[in-house]
């Protein structure tokens, strides 16, 4: 039965141009679409396949590609399956369309992403501050934001070096800080 639904879903998705479908498991499908085809895809999924629940919109900052990746996770209560639609948008100016008219919960997710990454969603009902109401720095989840430099500037530390920690360090353990080259905020542009 679920095989049948999966097959039918694949056929449905092929109606969209430039789409790439990867079936991760019987209940998970990853779809890569061009950014301008996403609203059509979501409309199709919602209207014809029962994917009525938008569980989340997630965002990834691919700073080296100068792109943001947005992932729309939609769930169907009938097929019991999750479709994750991935799109890439340019990092500058970082503007995309809101899907609020299709899925109302998108308003929250978009507002959150706007706050954390600075992406502007056209047509979203509210792009005001959400959780960081008392924050006026740059969007903190962008990779170029150097959190460590920020805290070194604004906050201070106290010495904490108990004997057990010294013993650990002597054995080559202790706190591990990733090497400079793995830290995006440390890369010189």
């Amino acid at each position: 039965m679920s095989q049948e639904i999966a097959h039918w879903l694949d056929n449905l998705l092929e109606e969209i141009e430039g789409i790439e479908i990867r079936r991760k498991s019987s209940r998970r499908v990853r779809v890569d679409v061009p950014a301008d085809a996403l609203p059509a895809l979501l409309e199709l999924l919602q209207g014809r396949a029962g994917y009525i629940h938008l569980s989340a919109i997630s965002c990834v900052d691919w700073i080296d590609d100068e792109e943001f990746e947005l992932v729309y996770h939609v769930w169907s209560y009938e097929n019991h399956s999750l479709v994750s639609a991935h799109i890439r948008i340019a990092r500058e100016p970082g503007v995309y369309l809101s899907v609020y008219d299709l899925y109302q919960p998108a308003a929250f997710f978009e507002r959150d992403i706007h706050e954390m990454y600075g992406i502007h969603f056209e047509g979203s009902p509210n792009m005001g501050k959400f959780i960081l109401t008392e924050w006026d720095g740059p969007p903190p989840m962008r990779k170029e934001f150097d959190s460590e430099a920020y805290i070194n500037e604004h906050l201070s530390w106290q010495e904490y070096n108990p004997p057990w920690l010294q013993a650990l360090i002597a054995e080559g353990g202790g706190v591990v800080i990733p090497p400079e080259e793995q830290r995006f905020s440390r890369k010189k542009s």
Partner: protein
Amino acid sequence: MSSINQIPVIEAKRGNPLSKVFDELVRFCRSRSLFILHYCTGCGAIELPPAMTSRFDMERLGIQPMVSPRQADILLITGYVSIKTLKRVILTYEQMGSPKYVIGICSCTVNGGMYWQSYATAKKLDEYMPVDLYIAGCMPRPEAVIAGLQQLMNRIQSGEANSWEDYFRNYDYYLGNQQKLFGDNWQTPTDIITEAKHYNLMGEGTFGEHTRLLEQHQKPLEALDMRLGHNLKEPTE
């Protein structure tokens, strides 16, 4: 009597030879009846329900939860304090009646813990208010919490736990750190300086450049605007 300055303070003369004994008795009683205001800022709060309820039962030590800051003795900060929360914590602390004690549970209150790299959390709680005791661990077990509370009781009984006076005596230092984080306009609804004068707790560090800055900006006291989402649009139907 409209101003706090008009309330007469009677300087107590301590001529009675029994006053030391009496002090000791007061401290003993004080340490046996502690009401904690648990400000559950972080994940460490999850260890408090078992510490309070039948399994570990803090009440056998005379420690009970209390719901309002004005009636509590201990402010228990249970975990990371985000900068937004820190403002509320300071307001709460200032409203508690003296003597008051602060316990920082969790490594996050000591040095940021696992959020050391986060832009959103304050690292050292004792920069913003005097802390009597830290209980480190991520998160400390109820046994550790109770051991810490017992230590505090001993310190109260022996008269060592008076760091709350430090907030009045060194208000300039604490205010300076608060201003550094919250901006120069930072002001709480509690007038610490007047209180310090009133209770005779002025110290060398009560006044300083930061309190002068506060006096420049000081607005007549009224409730702070702490609504969430102040730029929320009015819902349109």
